[in-house]
């Protein structure tokens, strides 16, 4: 009876080992496929959805750890979810990239008008500041502080405008438009403070 039990245990162990071994190949293949799929979307995901990428990489690492421990069953059990997560990651990155591209195209189009507009605002302000600086008495609606602020503000705006132009030249129209809007808003404030908008 005891001898029979030993034989039975040996057979069961052999079957288990055979079963595990039969899952090693598919598990290895599942991890390799996941790595290949992730590599294809990694750069774009890193740029547009880094947090989601990190989560997927963590999932992949868990699968690798399970494989290293010989838990091929766990690898196979999590493989579908990992595949789905990588697919979702790629779609999310692609959607964000498309959004960014659309925003860039919009900014590029807006830059055309803005790049012609802002220098004219700055020229008008510069002209008024130059004339008011020669005035013996400022007009009633302009204070000395407002004029001083306009002078220093104008220098700052020219500097920011230069940065915006450089950004546009390098193709970063989103940043260029952001800076340009800052210049326009501040220039409008200065024009009001100098009574140029009435």
């Amino acid at each position: 009876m005891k001898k029979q039990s030993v034989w039975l245990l040996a057979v069961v162990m052999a079957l288990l080992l055979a079963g595990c071994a039969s899952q090693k190949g598919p598990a290895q293949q599942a991890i390799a496929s996941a790595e290949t799929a992730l590599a294809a979307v990694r750069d774009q995901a890193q740029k547009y959805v880094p947090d989601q990428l990190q989560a997927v990489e963590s999932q992949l690492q868990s699968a690798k750890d399970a494989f290293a421990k010989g838990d091929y069953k766990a690898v196979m059990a999590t493989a579908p979810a990992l595949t789905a997560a990588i697919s979702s990651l790629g779609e999310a990155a692609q959607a964000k990239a498309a959004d960014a591209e659309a925003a860039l195209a919009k900014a590029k189009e807006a830059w055309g008008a803005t790049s012609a507009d802002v220098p004219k605002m700055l020229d008008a302000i510069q002209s008024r500041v130059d004339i008011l600086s020669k005035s013996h008495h400022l007009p009633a609606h302009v204070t000395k502080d407002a004029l001083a602020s306009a002078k220093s503000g104008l220098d700052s705006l020219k500097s920011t405008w230069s940065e915006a132009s450089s950004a546009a030249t390098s193709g970063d129209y989103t940043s260029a438009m952001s800076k340009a809007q800052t210049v326009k808003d501040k220039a409008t404030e200065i024009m009001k403070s100098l009574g140029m908008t009435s």
Partner: protein
Amino acid sequence: MADDNNPYTQTHVVQSGETLSKIAQKYYGDASLYDKIFQANRDVLKDPNKIFPGQKLKIP
């Protein structure tokens, strides 16, 4: 001289009884700066002493 096509250059419509000096006083606080307005409007003004109601002047 103000840019003729600058939409941000302020404008002023001459009222009856106004002179360039009065307009300069209003916008610059200094009547003696009237020539700035005259020079910016040489396309429509030939004489700084001759402006007419209804004329639209650029105020640089």
